[in-house]
């Protein structure tokens, strides 16, 4: 970014941003075309989901196909999809509800899960990883290493079932769904506790993989920095060990993690299908799964597009954040 503050520096930054946004828009258009043609060319159509239904006559199927534009050429269907998406009139094939509000509502349901999981991941993996790096080779280091590998090696639903059994038997609380049904008249304190209990297990379990991966990453990053010359210099100066670790090493080790803020949102869609399915959580991942089962093309494609937008925005944000925190990086 050369010298921020000067006119030239700001100009360089903005041209960089503008060019990147432009590139990403092109990528996005390609993604949408690829996704659209793939979903439409693959066998299986919304009109064929229920072939054994005796009330479904060939005439009805004709009607459905016409209503969904399924007989038009692909590029026209793509056009219809884009037009409806941007005018906000895109309707689901399954229940004829508008797609965008539907996705928005599910997104709001997934959000608390994502926030809790992220908080758990970040607050646990940093201390774990840093401590393991400082005590490299100790019992603690080896135990956490092994635990981390064990945690990423368990099938998610296997662990979830075991945890559900344990939590329900030990604490005697319901954990499936977002809240207990029939509790609408209970007082506020009770309802909030109920919501909270329902949130604990799914967010903890979806955090498990993240904790394992991130704590390993923090550890290796920290080890990398501790081996650097300037840390040795700091020690040689006679600084206290705390000062060396927390002032000199840690600050530099944390740099790459700033970029991870950019990847929080895309995680919402990919990773949540299994856990939302297990816990009957009416979130975005589950909406996608239901849409796939029903061959609900508009919903599948729109979720996919949103995921792509979030991923691209995430990489842009992380590039920029990295340039802000690390003066060695120059935008070209």
């Amino acid at each position: 970014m050369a010298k921020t503050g000067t006119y030239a520096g700001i100009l360089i930054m903005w041209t960089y941003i503008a060019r990147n946004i432009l590139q990403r828009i092109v990528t996005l258009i390609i993604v949408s075309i690829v996704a659209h043609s793939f979903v439409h060319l693959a066998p299986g159509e919304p009109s064929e989901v229920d072939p054994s239904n005796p009330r479904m006559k060939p005439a009805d199927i004709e009607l459905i196909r016409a209503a969904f534009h399924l007989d038009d050429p692909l590029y026209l269907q793509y056009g219809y999809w884009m037009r409806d998406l941007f005018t906000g009139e895109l309707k689901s094939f399954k229940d004829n509800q508008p797609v965008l509000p539907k996705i928005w509502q599910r997104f709001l349901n997934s959000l608390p899960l994502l926030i809790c999981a992220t908080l758990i991941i970040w607050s646990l993996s940093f201390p774990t990883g840093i401590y393991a790096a400082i005590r490299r080779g100790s019992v603690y280091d080896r135990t956490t290493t092994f635990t981390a590998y064990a945690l990423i090696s368990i099938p998610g639903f296997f662990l979830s079932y075991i945890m559900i059994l344990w939590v329900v038997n030990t604490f005697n609380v319901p954990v499936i769904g977002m809240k207990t049904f029939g509790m609408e008249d209970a007082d506020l304190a009770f309802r909030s506790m109920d919501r909270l209990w329902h949130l604990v297990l799914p967010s903890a379990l979806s955090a498990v993989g993240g904790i394992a991966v991130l704590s390993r990453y923090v550890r290796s990053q920290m080890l990398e920095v501790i081996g650097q010359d300037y840390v040795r210099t700091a020690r040689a100066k006679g600084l206290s060990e705390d000062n060396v670790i927390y002032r000199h090493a840690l600050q530099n080790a944390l740099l790459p993690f700033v970029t991870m803020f950019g990847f929080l949102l895309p995680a919402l869609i990919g990773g949540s299908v299994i856990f939302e399915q297990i816990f009957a959580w009416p979130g975005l991942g589950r909406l996608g799964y239901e849409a796939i089962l029903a061959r609900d093309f508009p919903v599948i494609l729109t979720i996919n597009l949103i995921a792509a937008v979030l991923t691209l925005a995430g990489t842009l944000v992380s590039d920029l954040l990295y340039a802000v925190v690390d003066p060695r990086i120059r935008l070209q």
Partner: protein
Amino acid sequence: MTMNTQQSAMSPHRETIAELPPHETQVQEFWRILKKDRLAIFGMIVLGVLLMLAIAAKVTTEWVVIFDPSTVRLPDKFLPPMSDASTDLIPSEDRPVFGIYLFGTDELGRDVFARMLQGSFVSLSIGFIAVGISVAIGILLGGLSGYYGNVKLGFMTVDTLIMRFTDVMLCFPTFFLILTVVALLPPSIYNIMIVIGVTSWMGTARFVRAEFLSLREQDFVVAAKALGLPERRIIFRHMVPNAMAPVLVSATIGVASAILTESALSFLGFGVQPPFATWGNILSDGKGFIFDAPWLFFIPGFAILIVVLAFNLFGEGLREALNPKLRRR
């Protein structure tokens, strides 16, 4: 790429120091470092045993049927592990080996031990074939992009084209993409292998491209070019073997995640369909009987855990042993 750090230039000084003690070959050095990592050795032993088991399983469940995974014995439903077959109700040719159900029986009275054996071969082959596909695509595209990156194709270079395509693929949420494809295509074990492979090559392509970009400038490649070797030979004999280290590591870990992905697909009902037994679908069938027949759930669950753990630990051990930067510490 869009960013550069000033640190990227390697100091030539350090390389000369590292090359001083040439007492052991690369393989010896690799083995010496790997041997010290007890977890990786544990992983390697488990994988060795598993490989032999899987091959033995293929032989004994399909070619010379000793363990029969598909015989239905309704009188012997839900027998716990180590129980005897009921001799009076089951015809002698349907009885398991030694008349004992080692891992019990499932809801149709099938021998879980035989099914787990059959599943070990199927699960492993899903992992290996999926990773084989992804590594092949990754090396091809990464290699093209790294070696022929500057060749112009109309208005863009080969490198731009391939890397933009990689970016496009990275935009899809992987598991959601796999789920969509598997759900839309007709259910078949080959589709699952192909889909997992085709959606997971992006990391490999990036590694290989980066390795090729740095290898292309190194002296031995320049020398090979100066000798007038054909490009095919330069690429496959000189560059690919030198770029294999990170690929090998990510392939090992890739097999682990392919096995996990298959079990997750089974859980959602899109996994490998009968008559093939995989550990994933034994586990996901078993979840319905977690109270009545816990062995149907816990045996495949722990089997997957141990095997995936072994792949991960071995992969990490490989990474440490193959990484020259960590080696010098």
